[in-house]
């Protein structure tokens, strides 16, 4: 059984000194020590996700090249059918991966914010920490800043890779599918902002709830609500364009048609509300849509909204902390 003894002042080898200078200190050390397993899993997971996205992206290009080499753009052969089948399967995989990425911020918010913060509060360790030479606000600031930096890096790495896949792939995955939501949410700068918002949500919830399991469950539930609200409001971040015409339309494949229908007695009604005698052929029809030029402005507007929301949630966390120490 070894017992503690005063550390012998061994001189550090010169090569190790730079590494020692980089080691986390103070509260940074505590946060690293407390989350080192989670951070290791996160780093490994990020590498795996980026590698997966890159592999998918190159497979998409490979299939596209084969599609062209087989002359499928001018004629059709059984080989073309195989390639098309593979392309469709790949697109399905890609969308599944994007949906998984949408869930990831909630998991990381629960893992890096709600769980460690609420754990300290639930087990009273905050009193031990706050009676070291660390004020509660300084404790919370470090508890938020360091994981937030990590999440920003992770979110940026993943979203840039995802965006590269969506945007620059010839485009075998046209941005016309941005109406499915995942394209807009998994790109930078929206995705890192979404990660930070989920993290701030986890922090605010745990300071209000102060119990680990309820805080984690509430974080996941509220994130689900947030995503539903984002999906609902996203089309209206910029004014929709409207075209009215007699049958057919001249919209581009990349335009996002948000709603369409028929014009009856000067009123625009969705096709779903057309009765058996309404919306007869020859009537005027309409489309409300976003052109591709709206994509990036809407991305920046959504990022701004999420950043403001993250700031408000962070403010809520500090307010809850202040209430706890009053």
């Amino acid at each position: 059984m070894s017992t503690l003894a005063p550390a012998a002042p061994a001189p550090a080898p010169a090569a190790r000194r730079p590494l020692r200078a980089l080691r986390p200190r103070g509260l940074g050390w505590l946060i690293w020590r407390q989350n080192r397993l989670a951070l290791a899993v996160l780093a490994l997971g990020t590498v795996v996700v980026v590698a997966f996205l890159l592999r998918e992206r190159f497979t998409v290009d490979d299939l596209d090249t084969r599609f062209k080499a087989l002359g499928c753009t001018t004629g059709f052969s059984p080989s073309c059918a195989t390639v098309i089948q593979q392309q469709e399967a790949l697109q399905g995989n890609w969308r599944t991966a994007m949906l998984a990425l949408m869930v990831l911020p909630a998991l990381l918010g629960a893992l890096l914010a709600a769980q460690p913060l609420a754990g300290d509060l639930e087990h009273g360790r905050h009193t031990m920490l706050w009676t070291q030479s660390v004020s509660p606000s300084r404790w919370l600031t470090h508890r938020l800043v360091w994981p937030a930096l990590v999440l920003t890096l992770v979110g940026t790495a993943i979203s840039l890779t995802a965006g590269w896949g969506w945007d620059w792939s010839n485009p075998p995955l046209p941005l016309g599918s941005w109406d499915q939501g995942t394209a807009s949410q998994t790109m930078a700068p929206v995705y890192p902002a979404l990660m930070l918002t989920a993290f701030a949500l986890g922090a605010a919830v745990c300071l209000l709830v102060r119990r680990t399991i309820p805080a984690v469950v509430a974080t996941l539930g509220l994130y689900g609500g947030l995503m539903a609200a984002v999906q609902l409001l996203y089309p209206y971040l910029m004014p929709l364009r409207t075209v009215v015409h007699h049958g057919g339309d001249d919209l581009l494949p990349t335009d996002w048609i948000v709603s369409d229908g028929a014009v009856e007695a000067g009123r625009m009604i969705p096709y779903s509300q057309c009765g058996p005698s309404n919306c007869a052929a020859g009537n005027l029809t309409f489309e409300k849509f976003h052109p591709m030029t709206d994509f990036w402005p809407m991305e920046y507007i959504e990022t701004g909204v999420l950043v403001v929301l993250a700031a408000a949630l962070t403010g809520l966390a500090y307010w809850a902390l202040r209430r706890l120490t009053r």
Partner: protein
Amino acid sequence: MGKRYRRGWALRECGFTVPAGTVCGLVGPNGAGKSTLLSLAAGLLEPSEGEIRVLGSNPKNAEVRARISFVSQDKPLYPRFTVAETLQLGRELNPGWDEQRALDVVRQGQLPEHTRIGQLSGGQRTRVALALALGKCPDLLLLDEPMADLDPLARHQLMGTLMAQAAEHGTTVVISSHILAELDSVIDHLLLVDGGRTRLAGDVDGILADHRLLQGTDAMSLASHTVVEARRSGRQLSALVRPRGPIAEEWTVHEPTLEELLLAYLRSPESPAPGSAGADARTEAAA
């Protein structure tokens, strides 16, 4: 000073001074407000009315915070940290950390360096918590029933360690405890809180000297003294009083022990506190 929670006042009209360098016993029944008082002194809470000054300043000030250590009743440490990592936590978070002092406390308990906190016994965890508190080199050490869950031997050993450290470094110690015998011969200052109010505060010797334990028969009069507690057993009467003049010769008189005095006050929550209306003398803790 007072502190109010949603459910009501935890402390009210609470005023006292603890002299620097003393070991102060904080005594009171469950729910008396002892933990709230210590949390206020540690800067973990703010008073709802009045103010608390520790080491001459608000305990929430960064400079004061660095001079206070607090060990709460449940000794919350990270169960997955090793003993060495827990001490590193103290080193990382306290600029005035004294590694040797913390190690001395840990070494006395023969604690294995790489054992996780979660695998330690209650006494060993308390020792690590005390090492963390003492390694900070505090001027004021606040202990909230630190020995409550320990066996008598561990309690005796840790109390010895604690008092030796406090004496060596001139640390002011405020220790709350239910175990009255544990405080006797250890504390030189007393703070008795009950129902959120201070009932006794002052130098132990002075408080004991102000009280007398009288034994006689129920025919004998106590009218000329302030009676803290009177107990009858048949015709026998024993009473703890604060004399307001000469004591009649027929009484058997002796100075109470600290435990007798505290038990009498705790059994008689309605008895007048020194300094209250009707009491014979004003009690004020030494400045």
